[in-house]
């Protein structure tokens, strides 16, 4: 669906994207994360055949960037950082223009389909300039989908939206994902990436890491179980330490944070031992590192030259 090999972009002396090699499979939601200026938007622009790479190669939907640019533009949808709508025109006029430019057969049908899908049909004749930010963003997403592209580039789809609008957009992206489309999502919203993405790529000019959030959690932190007790006694600590599969244990107030390889299999044994040692367990949960933790760990590792 999408593949890059050593993709590099320079603007004069400024290296925007350095030697990027990655692959995104059909039907996958790939979240592209990185600080401001990391090269996310530049990468999207290269992959959408808007700007040319300085070196390296990329293929999008079977067409090579720089060779089949017109075919690439026909086969991808793009939501740019700003909605970029024609504010004096109404919603139908905005979408109809793009449907014609994307050579859609049933212009009116497709426009109606997406306006209804995104809850804008009742406001179709109003000038877009009077729309809220959320409505404009919905319209811009509809514009990107009109020609039913198999690959969708979404650049910060929920940036600057209020929580309700952001949630609507996120839910809609989830629906689009459910329809089997491939989504390349650039975002600063790590919670959004965590919810939607099958894999994430962290970039800071060069690609730092690519994997699924679950694999990154496991590889960076292992798996940790938190046992909440009425009181942590010496006997309970000793009973846990004696277990051969316990890799590490920390006490934090009345909780024990225990590193395990396979909590599903090892938790029942561990809990049995704790109870046998007189521990009064209140509840047990897995310590789940947020994508934010993962992101900052990877960025800090990169800055300190740590390789994993």
């Amino acid at each position: 669906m999408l593949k890059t090999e050593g993709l590099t972009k320079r603007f004069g002396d400024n290296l925007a994207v350095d030697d990027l090699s990655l692959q995104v499979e059909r039907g996958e939601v790939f979240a592209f994360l990185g600080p401001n200026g990391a090269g996310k938007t530049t990468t999207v622009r290269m992959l959408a055949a808007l700007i040319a790479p300085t070196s390296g190669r990329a293929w999008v939907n079977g067409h090579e960037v720089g060779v089949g640019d017109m075919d690439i533009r026909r086969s991808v949808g793009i939501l740019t950082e700003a909605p970029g709508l024609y504010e004096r025109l109404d919603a139908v006029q905005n979408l109809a223009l793009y449907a014609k430019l994307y050579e859609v057969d049933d212009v009116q049908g497709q426009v109606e389909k997406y306006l209804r899908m995104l809850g804008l049909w009742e406001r179709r004749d109003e000038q877009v300039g009077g729309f809220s930010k959320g409505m404009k963003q919905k319209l811009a997403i509809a514009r990107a989908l009109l020609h039913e592209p198999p690959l969708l580039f979404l650049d910060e789809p929920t940036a600057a939206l209020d929580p309700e609008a952001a949630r609507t957009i996120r839910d809609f992206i989830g629906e689009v994902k459910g329809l089997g489309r491939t989504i390349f999502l650039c975002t600063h919203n790590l919670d959004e990436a965590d919810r939607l993405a099958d894999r994430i790529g962290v970039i800071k000019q060069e690609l730092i890491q690519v994997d699924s959030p679950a694999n990154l959690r496991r590889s960076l932190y292992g798996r940790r179980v938190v046992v909440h007790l009425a009181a942590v006694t010496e006997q309970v600590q000793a009973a846990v330490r004696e277990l051969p599969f316990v890799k590490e244990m920390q006490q934090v107030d009345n909780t024990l944070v225990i590193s395990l390889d396979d909590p599903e299999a090892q938790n029942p044994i561990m809990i049995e031992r704790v109870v046998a040692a007189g521990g009064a367990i209140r509840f047990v949960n897995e310590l789940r590192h947020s994508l934010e933790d993962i992101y900052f760990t990877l960025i800090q590792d990169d800055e300190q030259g740590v390789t994993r």
Partner: protein
Amino acid sequence: MNGDKIRAIVDKEIADARKNKMIVLSMLILPILLVGTVLGTSFFMVRDGGELDEDDMGIIPAELRDIDPMHAFLMIMNDQYLFYFLLIPMMMPVYIAAYSIVGEKETKSLEPLLATPISVGELLVAKSAAAVVPSVILTWLSFVVLLIGSYFIMPGPVLQAMIRPVWLVGMALLSPLLALLSVFCGIIASSRINDPRVAQQVAGIFVIPIIGMSLVVIAGKIFLSVGVMLMTAAITLAVDCAVLYVAVRLFRRETILTRWK
């Protein structure tokens, strides 16, 4: 060139412009002023009659000496005004054209537009057509209004002079081609300069040499005939094609998207 895509952009541009009262007013004001001036001046000259002095008689060429001096004077005056009619569609759309690319960049609508499968040639032709077509139609309409008004005001020979072939060819051919030329210049300015106001000023400068050449004609240094009009139209067409080619070559998608803020 895909006609459907070009028409889609033209429709959008015109729909957008129609909702902008300033653009509509600025396009209407010039033809209204010109038609009003010609009809008003002619009306008072015909009504009040009067004698022409020696200076006035001096500008009447030999071939018009046999007819009524007032009629001859009106014919000469109208010829000059009609020349301005040729220039209206050149002046009207240049500022719209100058804003066309840089304006889209400013409203951030250029990137989604360039992400569609439209070629630079199609985009520029569409933008040019959107600026030229309303201007030419307005000019033609105002010419028709002028002729209708003249029918009631002007003496017969003067009216006949206004609809002689040289002017009809000029209106039908040269006027749109001159408009295209100025619009292409405006679009070059718009796609190379990242500030809309500067682009509009520079586009205005592009038009000065063309207007200068027009003044040479008005001053009588070149005699206007159908042949001259057709030859000028052919040359203008060739220059249009060359300027469009230059405009497409000068359009830098990447620079516009990445360097302009």
